[in-house]
């Protein structure tokens, strides 16, 4: 394995693909490299080329979660989601861009079972242990998206500027299909550079977890109130961050036997979140 230190976004993007992997904070990538879930001939370090810091409504993808959790200028939902993610040591390394692209915590995937997400034909979690898994979008793969900030940014209607285009956060994520097992629409060599996060009138992020600190979300609920209404998004309930129009959308959930409790966990969280922003 080798390390590349490109001096421009263009050079970084050109160096990706063909066995090269982008390295930002490393808090997701380093353990996956060690566990051989990701193999890389080359690591492309993004630290010097991806924007970092907050400017107005724009957030550089290289900004760390630790920087965001104390930033009074960003919407509360994003700040709270960052503060509730991981542990202080990881938040001080992990970047918001990397956080949006973090891999699922599904243990079948992490233990390299030949599951649907790894290109196989079945989802082992659907038949096996799946307490932490999905209640929406889980027909082929029942993994749950682990990012708290992603749900917050989805509720906030954030837009993403990449090295190639600008797209809504909703377009960044996709459910894996037979033809394409990726959960994001990023193309090879495409880098997230910046987020544009609209300012809501009020916003909040609430999170249910197995312990009060340092846990991935069982269910995370983000709500953001804008002049034209409230936007809701959930973490930990689908293979990707999941939008809901209202609490009644929970009735359309497709829980597995072991995840049915998440529907009932989400319900009061959504009510509390709506109460908090309205």
């Amino acid at each position, binding site marked *: *394995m080798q*390390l590349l230190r490109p001096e421009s976004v263009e050079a970084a993007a050109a160096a990706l693909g063909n066995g090269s992997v982008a390295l930002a904070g490393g808090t997701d990538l*380093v*353990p996956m490299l*060690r566990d051989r879930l990701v193999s890389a001939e080359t690591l492309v370090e993004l630290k010097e080329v991806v924007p970092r810091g907050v400017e107005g409504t724009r957030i550089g993808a290289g900004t760390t979660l630790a920087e965001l959790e104390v930033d009074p200028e960003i919407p509360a939902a994003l700040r709270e989601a960052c503060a509730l993610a991981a542990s202080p*040591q990881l938040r001080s390394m992990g970047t918001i861009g990397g956080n949006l692209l973090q891999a699922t915590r599904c243990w079948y995937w992490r233990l390299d079972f030949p599951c649907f997400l790894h290109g196989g034909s079945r989802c082992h979690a659907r038949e096996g242990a799946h307490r932490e898994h999905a209640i929406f979008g889980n027909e082929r793969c029942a993994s749950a998206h682990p990012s708290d900030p992603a749900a917050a940014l989805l509720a906030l209607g954030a837009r993403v500027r990449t090295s190639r285009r600008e797209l809504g956060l909703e377009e960044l994520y996709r459910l894996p299909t037979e033809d394409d097992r990726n959960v994001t629409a990023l193309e090879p060599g495409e880098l997230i550079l910046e987020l544009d996060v609209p300012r809501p009138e009020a916003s909040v992020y609430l999170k249910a977890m197995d312990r009060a*600190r*340092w846990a991935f979300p069982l269910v995370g609920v983000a709500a953001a109130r804008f002049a034209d209404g409230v936007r809701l998004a959930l973490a930990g309930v689908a293979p990707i961050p999941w939008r809901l129009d209202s609490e009644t959308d929970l009735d359309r959930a497709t829980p597995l036997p072991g995840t049915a409790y998440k529907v009932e966990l989400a319900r009061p969280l959504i009510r509390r979140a709506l109460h908090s922003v309205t």
Partner: protein
Amino acid sequence: MDVVTSQTIGVEVNGTTYEREVEARRLLIHLLRDDLDLTGSHIGCDTGNCGACSVILDRTLVKSCMVLAIQADGASIETVEGLAGEEQLTPLQQAFSDHHALQCGYCTPGMLMSATALLRENPKPSDEEIAKAIQGNICRCTGYWNIFEAIKAASE
């Protein structure tokens, strides 16, 4: 653009400058423990969970099992070995001793680094801020209360 499989990196650890040739895949904790013989930072889980390997990297608290050594090139690092002077413990270390804030001692280096980072940023933390500062450190003797008391005492 530089391309390297292993490279010579320079780090300053506890005020001493070291140059070492490291492979790109080497973790910072292994550089510290195996190459620099600074075995105070512990490897508890090797998965970013336990915090026993916490060090301060360019004034930022990190888990050194989640950082590649090459990411630390040019950085200034503080480990538990750098806290005390020749004879003198830091007030925080003394408070850990006074308050029996260690049992098996395995988590202690990480706890000390997390608390050191906290008190440097925030010399008078609230109870909640103390608890938050050691969120990422696990004590399997479950001696959290004495650790909390020691940090509180050191902050007063």
